[in-house]
């Protein structure tokens, strides 16, 4: 097994193990920390596949910004394992069976696909120069629309988070 294969299996094991930790741990803070580890493992996969720009963006935006926001909210509400609401055993079992059936159905579908070999030579499609060229030529309209989306989300978050009365504790971005 070459180094690519070893790294693939190690990162996959970390990603799946930590993803299971997210849904199984009782303490919400532990769930957030497990999800950060999952995102780091997925970022490692990006690096393995020559997507260097997405690797950096994934770490900065997901692990750095989004998950810290989650962590702030969890700590702001003082959530811990004692106040964690639990579903009944039957409902949890039903959730696992539903997810497992989806897994099996899609697995049966992808089992018949033709495996495509991954070219392990280094390419520069994942570098910021190339991605920037594509983004500002082919995808310039979605890019502009996403800026409008960001603006409306910022305004929306401020409007939703604004207290109607007395002291204004604002929840913006």
């Amino acid at each position: 097994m070459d180094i690519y294969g070893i790294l693939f299996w190690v990162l996959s094991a970390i990603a799946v193990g930590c993803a299971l930790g997210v849904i199984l741990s009782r303490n919400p803070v532990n769930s957030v920390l497990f999800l950060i580890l999952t995102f780091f493992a997925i970022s490692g996969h990006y690096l393995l596949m020559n997507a260097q720009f997405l690797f950096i963006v994934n770490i900065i935006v997901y692990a750095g910004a989004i998950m810290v926001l989650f962590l702030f909210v969890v700590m702001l509400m003082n959530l811990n394992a004692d106040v964690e609401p639990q579903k009944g055993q039957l409902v949890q079992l039903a959730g696992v069976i539903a997810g497992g059936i989806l897994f099996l159905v899609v697995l049966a579908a992808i089992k018949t696909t033709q495996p495509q070999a991954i070219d392990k030579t280094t390419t520069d499609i994942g570098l910021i120069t190339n991605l920037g060229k594509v983004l500002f030529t082919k995808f310039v309209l979605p890019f502009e629309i996403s800026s409008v989306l960001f603006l409306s989300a910022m305004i929306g978050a401020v409007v939703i988070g604004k207290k109607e009365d007395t002291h204004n504790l604002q929840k913006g971005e």
Partner: protein
Amino acid sequence: MPVNSTHYLFLSLLLFSIGIMGALMRRNAIIIFMCIELMLNAVNLLLVAFSKIYGDADAQLFVFFIMVVAAVEVAVGLAIIVMMYRKVHSVDINILNRLKH
């Protein structure tokens, strides 16, 4: 056996299914939200894998846009959850069944 596209399909399907199971199993609104993030990341992983296989940069740009949408969704969603916590002092989604009555 060298790593090929089927491995990535399998890994991403596994992460997606774990996300679905978590969203169905948990009652904490924040954890459900995190499971949705996990599902989005599973899809991102698959898009990057196929971008590598076919040598096409378009898929990586789509990952970029999915990240944009996820960031927007988190900002608005967490604002809604904080607002709900302020009203009912809980993040339990079973409390939000008033439309049922």
